[in-house]
């Protein structure tokens, strides 16, 4: 009885697998459809741009404009948060159902090239026309893995002129001004206290770096890191100028409501704040560390990345679309709409930028920025820093212990990569 049942089960199992193996053959993949009619191409574009700051609307307008000129090329535009985009793209890579084009941040180049999911763009484009520093943030192993759309993505100090006349130039001034401005329902400074992306500028200000010179050995347990953590602790507990708890949205809301005089946020947020605060919005460098340097926020940018295996008419259409988006006209349009610095060298001299105080401030901050590492090891550094930074800010760990724990965590994580 039992043997029979097992035999039956095993038999059906094999039959089921044979059926399962046959099934996909019958479904034509989008590529095949595209090949059958070379004239029409449908491009699935995943973008990290969201609706809140008008980014998605901007991408949609570009896509619509392109389809108007080339009716044979249509787009399916999908918006995904930065992290979701990374996760979903890796999953899609495993399943073999990748989108056709990505519009995303530079640090995705590391994991995506590790997994072998994107192609290098060196042979497809004349990359000389793009800004050097923007290209540098998408280069790995001597190849370029993304075409830059915008340049920057860096943090800066934004202030509400209705509350504070001019931006503090040093950390001492920041604390002094901040304490004056901090009342029961208002804060001197707000920033996203949960992400180490907001920690690294200060680390640079105290003279530290997250990697040794080889670019992949973590150097997190350093005096500079301890001083940085101590500084973040001090502006929260010793001379409080920041809220007891605030994530990105919390900080953003406080600044927009006029309940925070200053915020440290990225160039992506300029457009949104300009809309709310108008002429009251000021842009400056993050204040210089007393006894240290100007903080070095990470610079990178937003990039097109092309999944591996795209070819033929689709690839041609994609290359043409990328040229379209990074043309001088559309770069200027991006500057106007999103207040981001262009990646096209020729577009940098546009009076739109040189005459705009906010963009001038943004460009001024970028000068002291540091290109964000692209290697996959950086992910380990972020993951190592995040919980420890939060622990110091929650007053559950000393900066010394936290820095040591960051280093151990990053090293373990890197060992686990293999």
């Amino acid at each position: 009885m039992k043997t029979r049942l097992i035999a039956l089960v095993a038999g059906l199992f094999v039959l089921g697998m044979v059926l399962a193996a046959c099934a996909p053959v019958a479904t034509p993949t989008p590529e095949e459809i595209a090949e059958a009619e070379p004239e029409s191409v449908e491009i699935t574009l995943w973008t990290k741009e969201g609706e809140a700051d008008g980014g998605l609307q901007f991408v949609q307008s570009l896509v619509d404009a392109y389809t108007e000129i080339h009716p044979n090329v249509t787009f399916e535009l999908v918006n995904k948060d930065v992290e979701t985009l990374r996760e979903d793209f890796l999953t899609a890579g495993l399943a073999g159902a990748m989108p056709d084009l990505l519009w995303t941040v530079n640090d995705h180049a590391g994991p995506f090239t590790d997994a072998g999911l994107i192609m290098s763009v060196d042979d497809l484009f004349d990359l000389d026309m793009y800004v050097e520093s923007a290209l540098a943030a998408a280069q790995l192993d001597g190849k370029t893995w993304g075409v830059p759309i915008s340049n920057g993505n860096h943090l800066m100090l934004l202030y509400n002129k209705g509350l504070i006349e001019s931006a503090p130039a040093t950390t001492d001034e920041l604390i002094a001004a901040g304490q004056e401005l901090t009342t029961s329902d208002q804060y001197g400074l707000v920033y996203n206290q949960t992400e180490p992306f907001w920690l690294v500028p200060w680390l640079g200000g105290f003279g530290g770096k997250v990697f040794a010179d080889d670019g992949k050995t973590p150097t997190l347990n350093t005096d500079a890191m301890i001083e940085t953590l101590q500084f973040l602790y001090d502006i929260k507990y010793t001379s409080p100028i920041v809220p007891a708890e605030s994530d990105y949205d919390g900080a953003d809301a406080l600044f927009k409501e006029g309940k925070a005089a200053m915020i440290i946020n990225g160039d992506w947020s300029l457009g949104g704040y300009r809309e709310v605060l108008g002429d009251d919005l000021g842009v400056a460098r993050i204040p210089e560390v007393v006894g240290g340097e100007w903080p070095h926020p990470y610079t990178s940018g937003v990039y097109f990345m092309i999944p591996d295996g795209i070819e033929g008419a689709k690839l041609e259409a994609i290359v043409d679309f990328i040229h379209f988006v990074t043309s001088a006209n559309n770069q200027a349009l991006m500057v106007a709409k999103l207040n981001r610095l262009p990646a096209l060298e020729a577009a940098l001299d546009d009076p739109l930028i040189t005459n705009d105080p906010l963009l001038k401030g943004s460009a001024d901050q970028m000068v002291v920025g540091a290109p964000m590492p692209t290697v996959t090891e950086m992910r380990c550094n972020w993951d190592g820093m995040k919980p420890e930074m939060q622990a110091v800010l929650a007053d559950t760990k000393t900066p010394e212990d936290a820095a040591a724990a960051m280093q151990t965590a990053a090293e373990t994580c890197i060992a686990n990569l293999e």
Partner: protein
Amino acid sequence: MEFLTWEVVLNALGEVGSTVLYIFAGTVLLELFVYFLWTPLRALSRRVDGWLDPLGDRLRHLVATVLMAVVVVFAVRAIAVGQTPSPWAPYWPLTVVVFGLGLFISPNALNIFQSELRLAYMLLAPAVVGLLLLVVFPLLWELNVSLTNLNPRHFQSPDYIGLTNYLEVFTKPVLKQVTFFPVLLRTILWTAVNLLFHVTGGMILALLLNRKMRFKGLYRALLVFPWAIPQPIAVLAWRGEFHFEYGFVNIMLQRLGLPAIQWMTDPTWNFIAMSITNIWLGIPFMMVILLGGLQSIAGDYYEAAELDGASAWQQFWGVTVPLLRPVLTPAVILGTVWTFTNFNVPFFINQNELETSDTLVTALFRSAFQYFNLGDAAAFAFVIFGLLLVFSVLYIRVTGGLKGAYE
């Protein structure tokens, strides 16, 4: 934005529809095969039995078992490499041939076709196929992945590394710094705390509701409300209420003159926030189950107890609790498994990804779908599966919960 165009909707419907059609056609084929080939196969099996008789049952069993083992190995390998072209691909037809040989050599296998239960087998076949495809197949694939180093560095062509992943589940940090056993202990603590409050809270509410009063139905409906909201929505709403600046909880605390709490960054408070949310979510279930149990206890017992001079407290422990046990035990077991494996609450309330708030299940999810250490995660999943399996088997042994199903 207008992303959900008719075209997209129709495409999606078409995909789902064609999948359903495939399954339907497969089932029909299978039924036709069994129905029409029954008689010839039966005759054939008798003849083959006659030929192979001299070999002896024991030898035939042995050979058949070996061949079936080969089939399983082939099948697993074939599934494993199915996603990428590989030299294993031609093994598909061979697998089928080996399987057929095994079937014919086995002394009893072909008796399926002679059995009087064939109608039963036929009717079961579609369900068996479904289970194989949806449960057994993924499980075998997962087993296979757990033996590889599939991670972002070895994405397209993972290597087999034996049982290393299983060892590393216990020796290496699960995600960043915390190792397996602290996470396990935390998960057990989480389960125990939640269950304690679920049962106590549920019991108190059930006792309050189990008497004559006005608007009883209304109260019951209101109390069951948390259970009726989709969990992720309820949890996200709670997360909003734990917001430092704008959340209800902190605003109330400050109105009462207490300091605001850092619910999202302080590890202890985050764990408490998780627990509060889950207790709120879990009490209605216990209340409904216990109320049902209470209503089935006859009033005579209490009358008798009262005559004997028992206090209300004594009645509760002497009458209510023992008589509730048949209802309470399965409810507690279900609650344990649900809380242990609860994903929504620990995942969504832990907005800052504090490692100190991760339970086994959320750690597993992060390991697989945020870090993409898929090999590690597969081994990890089997370890969790093993834990719950041991728990279930022990429970069934101790309570005899499945007795009814066997007899």
